[in-house]
């Protein structure tokens, strides 16, 4: 093995290792600024200069960018090295305002720590410092360019990892300024990572602004519940700890128990690497907004009675016992444990299979993937994106599971061919990472098949990864399912649009074999055959199409029990509302879209009287005479392990991580010391033969109202946050500029859409990515009840009547 001489002792190294790797492994103190283990080497800050002797020549070399060679002599603590560190720090501090007392990074700032270790005690610079104005670049991030030390970490991240195009570097020399154009908001869903990448407080988060100090914080490793990727995160909370200092913590404020201070990324190389999306990062303020505090029961005169748990559960159990045909619908947002408890309540205690989590229009008797592939799950993985030669995406990834975007960008950079099949251009095709294959609304299947036959040559003998969202055309799903089952080089990554859908399927929260699915449950409610409906963490009035059926169903059901955290509109129809915990308040496991079962630790105290859903189901099981003796979520999981075969060998409660050789004295790199790994459920795919009858093609002439996902507005939790509001355009329909111009509308105009003889007032917003003829509404229907007329994803617009001038927003 080749050797170098490090500070006078011989050290072995592997081929290709840099001097920095070796020095850190050996515990030597080498400070860095521009180097970040997850970013390409930049070698600009010169902080890691070390004295190197090679072939008789001595000089200073950047440790981060110099590969070790046999016979090299390296000193990390010689006079020359120390002088280099001292000079670079003095030069870096020339312009730094030293406003640590009111800087958010104070206490976890690389510059602060390294200056204390190596820097000069006072500056010899006697001229005015360079100043920039504070820049507001969107609802999430503040830029303080005056503090910037121009390490280029942000630009390197934004360009190479995030794939963003709207982060620029202006001017040069020491007036170098980073950020988007003037008065522009950042338009990349990974922008929040800039805060973590920045070695000091030049980029700070607005959620964390002037709020606390790092030494008051406890970081809880957990899982983001926002999407089915299950990004690994650290949730920072402020708790009373014996060693904590600071006025607030000593006093121990009550609201600290319910307040998430910020969310940071956690490294898991199989899932999110280190980067998390803005939705994962900034969606945490909903925890205190519009919450249900205690069980509420409806009295005979229609008013709410605030009850305690025993009374409420007894009364509900009595009603449930009387019910002939109960049913439960869900949004797949709970933990696996809760889903299993619900399944046990229904399938084993009540002996009724009426349980489903799918949206009514997707609740098919025959799951296309299960029928063709043998099990309803992806057989590929997120890591396959890095291996595939051709990637075919059906649907809008950015709005459903944005977290896989970093891998898509990387795949495109490495030369893989990416195709996006979607009615409009989404982010990856618009920014040029992928080729857009337009799909006609109503003729998706035909367009998909003709795309495959047109591009046969490009797909032949290649490793292909299909990425489809689970709400895309079922015929396309079964086509891909069969293709993947037959072809070994083809893999499928099924994007679940509901966060824990895979876990719900695995633990058996499904109507099989003979129960009613969501559509039939709602139908049953409407015609009175179902007399007890449990609505669990789903808002049917906002999420389901065909709102009138839903409203009628809720009205006609004798007993509606709503398990929810928020006072959402369906609680109006409820006979009882039970408060349940939000994801960060609850312990449990979640399964991501490829089958990784991951442990979510509870970071907060449950809000007032709210309880985890599994506990409620357990109480109901006991009151109905069943057997449930779990005392914690872990107990539930040990029962799941016995019953659910794919989870047999898993032990997610034992969180596994390895320690890396990174030093402790650089705060932004200290975070990366621990690498987490998760275990994957073992699915058995038993393909069956499955006939596909090509669907009828439907053509809509004229203007089509089309529903699509939205990264913030479409998420059950994210849209409740005040922080996200600027990115959520309420009451807005997106059209192409040419279409808008043709109708005589300006950007921001108020119009009345006439669909199926109903009128809706909306705002028009131009979006050049949308083809003419398409009017796109995104996300939940909490602002405009367009689901009254949308029986499926699209409907025909009869008329557009302008009502007012452009509204200044």
């Amino acid at each position, binding site marked *: 093995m080749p050797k170098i001489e490090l500070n006078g002792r011989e050290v072995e190294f592997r081929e290709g290792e840099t001097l920095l790797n070796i020095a850190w492994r050996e515990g030597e103190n080498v400070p860095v600024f521009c180097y970040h283990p997850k970013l390409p*080497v*930049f*070698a*600009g*800050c*010169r*902080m890691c*200069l070390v004295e190197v002797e090679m072939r008789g020549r001595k*000089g*200073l070399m950047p440790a981060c*960018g110099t*590969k070790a060679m046999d016979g090299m002599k390296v000193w990390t603590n010689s006079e020359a090295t120390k*002088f*280099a560190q001292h*000079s*670079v720090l*003095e*030069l*870096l501090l*020339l*312009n730094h305002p030293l406003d640590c007392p009111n800087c958010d990074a104070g206490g976890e700032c690389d510059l602060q720590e390294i200056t204390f270790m190596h820097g000069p005690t006072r500056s*010899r*610079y006697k*001229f005015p410092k360079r100043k920039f104005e504070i820049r507001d670049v969107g609802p999430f991030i503040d830029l303080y360019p005056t503090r910037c*030390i*121009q390490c*280029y970490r942000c630009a390197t991240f934004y360009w190479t990892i995030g794939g963003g195009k709207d982060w620029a*570097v202006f*001017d*040069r*020399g*020491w*007036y*170098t300024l980073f950020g988007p154009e003037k008065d522009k908001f950042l338009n990349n869903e990974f922008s929040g990572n800039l805060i973590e990448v920045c070695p000091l407080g030049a980029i700070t988060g607005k959620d964390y602004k002037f709020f606390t100090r790092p030494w008051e914080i406890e970081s809880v490793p957990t899982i983001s519940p926002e999407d089915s990727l299950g990004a690994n995160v650290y949730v920072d909370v402020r708790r009373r700890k014996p060693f904590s200092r600071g006025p607030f913590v000593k006093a121990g404020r009550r609201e600290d128990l319910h307040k998430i201070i910020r969310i940071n990324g956690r490294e898991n190389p199989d899932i999110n690497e280190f980067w998390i999306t803005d939705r994962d990062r900034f969606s945490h303020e909903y925890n205190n907004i519009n919450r249900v505090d205690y069980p509420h029961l409806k009295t005979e005169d229609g008013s709410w009675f605030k009850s305690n748990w025993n009374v409420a559960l007894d009364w509900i159990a009595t009603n449930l016992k009387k019910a002939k045909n109960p049913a439960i619908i869900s949004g797949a947002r709970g933990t696996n444990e809760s889903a299993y408890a619900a399944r046990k309540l229904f399938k084993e205690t009540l002996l009724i299979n009426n349980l489903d989590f799918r949206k009514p229009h997707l609740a098919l008797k025959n799951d296309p993937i299960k029928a063709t592939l043998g099990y309803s799950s992806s057989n590929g993985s997120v890591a396959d994106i890095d291996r595939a030669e051709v990637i075919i995406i059906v649907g809008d990834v950015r709005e459903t599971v944005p977290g896989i975007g970093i891998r898509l960008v990387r795949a495109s950079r490495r030369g893989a061919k990416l195709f996006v099949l979607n009615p409009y251009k989404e982010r990856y095709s618009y920014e040029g990472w992928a080729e857009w294959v337009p799909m006609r609304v109503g003729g998706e299947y035909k367009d998909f098949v003709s795309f495959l036959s047109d591009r046969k040559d490009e797909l032949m003998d290649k490793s292909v990864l299909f990425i489809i969202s689970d709400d895309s055309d079922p015929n396309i799903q079964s086509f891909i399912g069969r293709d993947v089952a037959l072809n070994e080089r083809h893999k499928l990554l099924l994007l679940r649009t509901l966060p824990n859908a895979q876990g719900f399927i695995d633990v058996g929260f499904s109507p099989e074999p003979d129960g009613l699915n969501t559509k039939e449950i709602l139908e049953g409610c409407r015609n009175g055959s179902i007399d007890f409906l449990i609505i669990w963490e789903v808002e049917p009035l906002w999420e389901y199409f065909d709102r009138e059926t839903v409203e009628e169903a809720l009205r006609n059901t004798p007993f509606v029990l709503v398990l929810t955290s928020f006072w959402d509109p369906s609680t109006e129809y409820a006979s009882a509302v039970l408060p349940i915990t939000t994801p960060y308040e609850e312990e449990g496991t979640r399964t991501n879209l490829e089958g990784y079962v991951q442990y979510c630790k509870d970071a907060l105290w449950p809000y007032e009287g709210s309880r985890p859903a599994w506990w409620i189901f357990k109480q109901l099981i006991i009151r109905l005479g069943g057997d449930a003796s779990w005392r914690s979520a872990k107990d539930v999981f040990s029962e799941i392990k016995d019953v659910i075969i794919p989870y047999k060998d898993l032990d997610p409660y034992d969180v596994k991580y390895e320690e890396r050789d990174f030093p402790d004295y650089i705060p932004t790199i200290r975070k990366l010391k621990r690498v987490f790994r998760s275990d994957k459920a073992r699915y058995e795919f038993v393909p069956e033969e499955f006939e596909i009858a090509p669907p009828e093609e439907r053509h809509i002439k004229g203007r089509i109202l089309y529903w699509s996902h939205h990264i913030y507005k479409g998420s059950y939790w994210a849209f409740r946050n005040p922080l996200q509001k600027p990115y959520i355009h309420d009451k807005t329909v997106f059209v192409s500029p040419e279409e808008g111009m043709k109708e005589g509308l300006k950007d921001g105009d108020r119009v009345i859409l006439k669909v199926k003889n109903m009128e809706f007032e909306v705002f028009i917003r131009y979006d050049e990515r949308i083809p003419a003829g398409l009017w796109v509404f995104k996300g939940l229907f909490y602002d405009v009840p367009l689901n009254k007329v949308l029986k499926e994803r699209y409907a025909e617009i009869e008329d557009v009547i302008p009502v007012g001038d452009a509204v200044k927003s």
Partner: protein
Amino acid sequence: MPKEYRLLLSYTDAKDSHAIDTYISLGGYESLRKALFDMSPQDIIEEVKKSKLRGRGGAGFPTGLKWDFVPKDHPGPKYVVCNADEGEPGTFKDREILYKAPHLLIEGMIIAGKAIGANEGYIYLRYEYIWIFQRLKDAIKEAYNKGFLGKNILGSGFDFDLYVYLGAGAYICGEETALLDSLEGKRGLPRLKPPYPAQFGLYGKPTVVNNVETLATVPIIINKGGEWYSSLGTEESTGTRLLAVSGAIKKPGVYEFELGSITLRELIEYCGGMKEGSEFLGVIPGGISAPILKEEDLDTPITMEDIAKKGSMLGSGAIMVLDRSVKILSLIRRTSEFFAFESCGKCTPCRDGTAWMTRILVDVEKRGFMTEEDVDMINSIVNEIKGKCFCALGEAAQMSVGAFVNKYKDELITNKVKRP
């Protein structure tokens, strides 16, 4: 009195020397025929190696060696890039070739393409030479029309396409890797080396980046042979060198001399001597990056190694003769300001060190004299920059400013400098 040796400049003498017909009548494109039909790529590289030609851009790296580093069996494209970003203050020698003998350069680039197996070439022209841009494009068009460029050149089966790219006016883009970044359409920042451009250059492909003068010399070497070329000049610095002489002399201009055949003093005399009534102050032998030389060093022969021995460098061959009408404080301030303004901001010592020096020197210039503390401060900053920069820009800044301050220290501190 030594005489000029007009090897390259002989192509610029005729009227309409930029036209292809004039060039062909002077024996142009004959070496291209020789290289295409009689020589293998390796032969060309060996010939250039034999000539011991060193890069004329400033660093003086052996050209043949540079070409030899390009992987021979690399699949996919390779590139030849001509560095015509002649940004070094005081340098105007490449302009002479670009404007008056563009075909010499074009021929050199095609031969270089043949030698390394590249089928595409780019000329990165500095923005300030926008007036040459059209002439270069016209010259390339002429070469295409005559069949020297394009597919299957002269029926030899070798293809070569040539493009001119106009930079946006940044000194740093004269650094070869920053030039490549700029050519790719990115921000011009120097890249981390290794990998060198010969392995990972333009668009990540093997690339040779050469100065205009270097590439223009190649046809002559191919024509007359490497051995003949290496017989000119000294052992270490072979051949001739274009010298862009400017300043307080009677006949400034571009001259060509055999290396080692002339000393700095003789050169000043050859250029007509100092202007009437001017008193010699110093000479900068290689563009503003090179430390200044004083009267006692004037007997140094003009070769790379001799000037290096005096603590300066021949660099780009821009010889600036300064007289006492120059305010030294303004000169130092302006030099420092230039480097601070042109620093790309990638590395800390260059970005912050040059700007700090400039602020001190602006102060000093206002005051009119330097103090002992100022000199110590400048020297201290120079030490903080020295050996820590990413590329040569920062090193050049500290060398040149440091030399000015230290060599004229006595005059500056006691304010003895004559002021007009």
